[in-house]
């Protein structure tokens, strides 16, 4: 388990976080869960994960700010997948401009997320 690739998941919906934790841990990844952007940044700085999954709309610090922090302040190229809700198309474009690698619109299939995670961590 100590060799497992680390993934930071920033998501304010605790039920979804728990579901994704179960699903991704089943695939052999180690999940670190943050309930908001502030906590996500702390986890990223502390654990240097191999992948970041982040929702766009979060309390305190948004997903966009998390991406900006990773790309500009930490200058890391860690793959980032963003989650967006319907009607946040502009936010998704901003996320890509800031350096996000992929996005998934909610509602999404957890199985599809696993495929995308695997592809990015290959």
């Amino acid at each position, binding site marked *: 388990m100590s060799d497992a690739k680390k993934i930071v998941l920033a998501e304010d*919906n*605790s*039920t*979804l976080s*728990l*579901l994704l934790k*179960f*699903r991704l841990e*089943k695939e052999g990844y180690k999940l670190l869960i943050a309930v908001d952007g502030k906590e996500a940044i702390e986890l990223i700085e502390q654990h240097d994960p191999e992948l970041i999954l982040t929702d766009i709309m979060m309390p305190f610090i948004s997903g966009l700010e998390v991406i900006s922090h990773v790309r500009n302040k930490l200058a890391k190229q860690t793959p980032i997948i963003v989650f967006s809700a*319907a009607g946040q198309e502009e936010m998704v474009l901003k996320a890509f401009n800031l350096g996000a690698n992929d996005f998934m619109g*909610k*509602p*999404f*299939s*957890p*199985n*599809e997320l696993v495929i995308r995670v695997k592809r990015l961590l290959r």
Partner: protein
Amino acid sequence: MKSYQYLIDYFENSPPIIQVVWVVCCVFLVSIVSLVLYLKFLRSKLRKDEKIVAKFQKEYESDLISYLYAGNEEEAISAEQQIIIDKLKICAADEFKRRIVVSTLLRLRNEISGEMAEAIQKLYFQSGLITYAFKKFKSNKWYVVAKGIRELTQLQVKEAHDKVMIFVNHPKKEIRKEVQLYLVTLFHFEGLKFLDLLETPLSEWDQIQLLEVLQRFDEQEIPDINPWLKSTNDSVVAFTLKLAKIYNQFEAKDTLLELLAHPQKKIRVEAIQVLCHLQVFEAKDVLKNKFGELSLEEQIAFFKLLENIFETGDEPFLLAHVNHENFEIKVSALKVLKILNFEKFKSLKENSAMPEYVKIVEFIEHN
């Protein structure tokens, strides 16, 4: 005791106005202290409730995730899943716990799709939560019924269709709105068939909400709108006109032309606008022939239509209206004339003695 007696003496010997002020002060002081104590109690109660809700929510989240991952291909319901179902059945009997269970299911149902979303819906049925949603339909309180329908919409329970349809003409507009959203969210364009039965008005806001829901779907094939355009309910006709415009329902051309003789002016004007959007040439001749009988709004709408679908033969009609007293009609006529016969258009400027009119012509000439 001495100072206490001193205060009583002071109060009794004070002039009446000072006594009144003291009484008022005391009343305020007592009220403020009681309110502060009450707020403190309320806050601690809310915090306590929040903690209880969070505790149950965590428990049900964990149960839900366990349920979702406890399935296997051999059995329809695994033993582990059955334990969770039984537990949730007991929780569902308690209104407080039921609310938390439903909100937990919804929190996840709104975020995911695919097999897991279907499994959540299955759990909603298996745990008997659906029966409680149906029980809400029997409530005398309108908001309880509306909440019941909304719950079924959010959990996408298509099986409730017939039960929900009973409320399609409910006197309370909030319930009707929930019914309409249920039908359109779950059955997409097919759900619009409630328009056949709708006897009550469909407000502008309801119409906007329905259109907003419809535009989320990939399939854009809409059923035959002709019967709705012929509806005796004017709001249904108005909504269908919006549908005809957004989804380019050229097939409904003949019925749209019939609406030019609708008793309601608002409908007639909207029909002209839709015909203009669809560029139905036949509408032009119908309206031109009875131009004098049209209301001003219809005349303006007709000229907007002319801007879209003009022909060379329209020139005499346009010339007859280049001096119309209505500004919008005048401008529309001049705009079309400029395209059809520029020389004639320029001659209007030269022959006019009115500086205001020349200014309008010049503006159109350069724009």
